[in-house]
């Protein structure tokens, strides 16, 4: 059993996705408990995988028993296992949350929704677990297609935003595929570790250079990094709340994982740092991403749209950490993947809860929300603290590592960008908190009771508990971040750093 944990991660959600329509056809109400029960399996398996990696180091799993590079291999190391745990944990929490929100937003579409939900999780897990370059593309498309379909049924502008996402996502995936083809021409292999072994002698070939650039641009499109971000904010903001709660924390982070994998496993760090200056370009793109994303976020009055621009800014942090290409920078980037997954999950679920209660999420309507929904908004406060980087939330630690990385690389401009972006984050998050907590409601003296008395009007428990778990996750990850770095993240850093 334990030896097959790696396969279970994918197989169980995939098979369940096939069974959801059948069971939903019989009894609609069974879909939700089935999905929640099924998503426990990947979490247990990925915790088992992580445990095994920590105990006995990286291992591989041959699918169908064919030895690599002829067959497909799962090559599992610290990075895979770590991201797998993040994905399966977040998707389980979001699936618990989904019940009321889905019933309210699309009562007649519950069955196909849950099937696609599982397929999306399968795709994301599949990208991370595999050790084969082409297999990544296949699962990337499973994730992308289910994501398109789920996003398209959101509020008014959703189909159009989704169509842009389809165009951009397809360009990204095809560029990645093209890069894989170029690597195949030059090395004759598709297995990541095999390619990594055969590649160094060709590092000065133009074919490899082209391959590297195409792969990074393709993944950059999926990551929504400036200037390739144009599709992202509308698509995320218009999606149904549960979908943005699942996609926003995970999709771009999985792309970030792919970028780390390509840059530091398939290619040796020396290629992107010294032979072609991709890391330098990446850091600048990331810096612009951080500033532009934050400024656009300030300009929004719609909470979900503000958070979507904030994704562009936050993905910039991760890209900056990757681009700095030193020990502290990459530690910060990987820690930020964890932090972002929980933080963005938390704030998007809060946005979904507000939509559930109020029907929209215009920031100016938030007056007295703290009195109506104290628990939900406290979770939002923790999320905002993490975004800004206030201890003991996880955001503080990842930012510290990123700033240390920038200092070690002696790139002072990025230190300034990181500090400045914290101020921008303060502006756009605390504006929301100010309206929700401190804005006086103007008493209406024409009425007999001038002060409207607000009763406690919290969201249902099935939504509140996942939100609180996410908020607790932010704090726990922050408090235990030294342990996380010591047991997992320090092994992810390539030896040459």
């Amino acid at each position, binding site marked *: 059993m334990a030896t097959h944990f790696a396969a279970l991660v994918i197989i169980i959600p995939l098979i369940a996705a096939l069974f959801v329509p059948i069971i939903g056809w019989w009894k609609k109400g069974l879909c939700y408990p089935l999905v929640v029960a099924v998503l426990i399996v990947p979490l247990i398996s990925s915790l088992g995988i992580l445990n095994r990696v920590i105990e006995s180091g990286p291992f591989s799993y041959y699918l169908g028993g064919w030895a690599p590079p002829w067959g497909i291999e799962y090559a599992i190391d610290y990075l895979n296992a770590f991201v797998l745990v993040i994905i399966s944990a977040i998707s389980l929490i979001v699936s618990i949350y989904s019940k009321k929100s889905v019933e309210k937003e699309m009562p007649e579409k519950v069955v196909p929704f849950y099937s696609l939900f599982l397929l999306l999780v399968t795709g994301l897990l599949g990208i991370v677990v595999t050790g084969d370059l*082409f297999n990544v*593309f*296949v699962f990337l*498309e499973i994730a*992308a*297609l289910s994501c*398109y*379909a789920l996003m*398209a*049924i959101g*509020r*008014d*502008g959703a*189909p*159009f935003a*989704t*169509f842009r996402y*389809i*165009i951009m996502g*397809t*360009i990204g995936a*095809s560029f990645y*595929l*093209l890069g894989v*083809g170029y690597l*195949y*021409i030059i090395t004759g292999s*598709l297995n990541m570790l095999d390619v990594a072994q055969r590649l160094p002698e060709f590092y000065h070939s133009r074919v490899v250079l082209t391959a590297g650039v195409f792969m990074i641009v393709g993944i950059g499109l999926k990551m929504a990094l400036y200037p390739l971000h144009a599709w992202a904010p509308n698509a995320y903001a218009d999606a149904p709340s549960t979908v943005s709660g699942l996609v926003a924390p995970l999709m771009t982070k999985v792309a970030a994982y792919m970028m780390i994998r390509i840059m530091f496993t398939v290619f040796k760090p020396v290629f992107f740092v010294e032979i072609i200056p991709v890391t330098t370009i990446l850091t600048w793109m990331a810096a612009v991403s951080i500033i532009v994303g934050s400024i656009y976020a300030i300009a929004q009055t719609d909470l979900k749209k503000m958070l979507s621009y904030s994704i562009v800014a936050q993905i910039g942090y991760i890209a900056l950490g990757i681009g700095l290409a030193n020990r502290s920078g990459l530690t910060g980037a990987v820690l930020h993947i964890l932090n972002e997954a929980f933080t963005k999950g938390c704030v998007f679920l809060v946005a979904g809860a507000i939509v559930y209660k109020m029907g929209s999420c215009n920031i100016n309507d938030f007056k007295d929300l703290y009195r109506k929904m104290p628990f939900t908004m406290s979770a939002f406060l923790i999320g905002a603290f993490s975004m800004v980087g206030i201890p003991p939330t996880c955001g503080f630690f990842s930012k510290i590592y990123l700033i240390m990385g920038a200092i070690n690389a002696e790139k002072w401009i990025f230190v300034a960008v990181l500090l400045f972006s914290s101020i921008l984050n303060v502006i756009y998050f605390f504006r929301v908190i100010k309206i929700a907590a401190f804005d006086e409601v103007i008493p209406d003296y024409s009425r007999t009771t001038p002060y409207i008395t607000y009763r406690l009007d919290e969201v249902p428990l099935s939504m509140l508990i996942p939100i609180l778990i996410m908020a607790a996750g932010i704090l726990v990850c922050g408090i235990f971040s030294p342990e996380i770095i010591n047991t997992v993240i320090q092994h992810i850093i390539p030896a040459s750093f």
Partner: protein
Amino acid sequence: MLEYIISKYNFWVYIILLLIGLYAMLGKKNLVKKLIGMNIFQSAVILFYVSIGVKKGGATVPIFMGDAHAAHGHGQAIIDVASYINPLPHVLMLTAIVVSIATTGVALAVLILIFRRYKTLELDEIIKIRKDTGV
């Protein structure tokens, strides 16, 4: 020079197709044209992969010729690698073709949703409606 161009002409063909597709995806104003551009773009990548598999000098389709039962029965039959073309790119492209069809299908469904909402598929008209109504 001419020889150089001819010796790699598969690459030129796919580059031209890829650029036509990419231009249609980014530059055209009609959403269906964008979608067709996407198909051309993906076909270009598929052609590129298939062309990797070619071997000159008498190689044929990757299906074992001769007595399969006899060869299978006698264990390790000696099969000349140069007489069959490379099967791997073909396998990969079978998958990629399916992916491309699936993407087209989903995109068409999204187009139907767009048409239901805006009653048009012209990009500038949609943008105008979005500006006017604020969605």
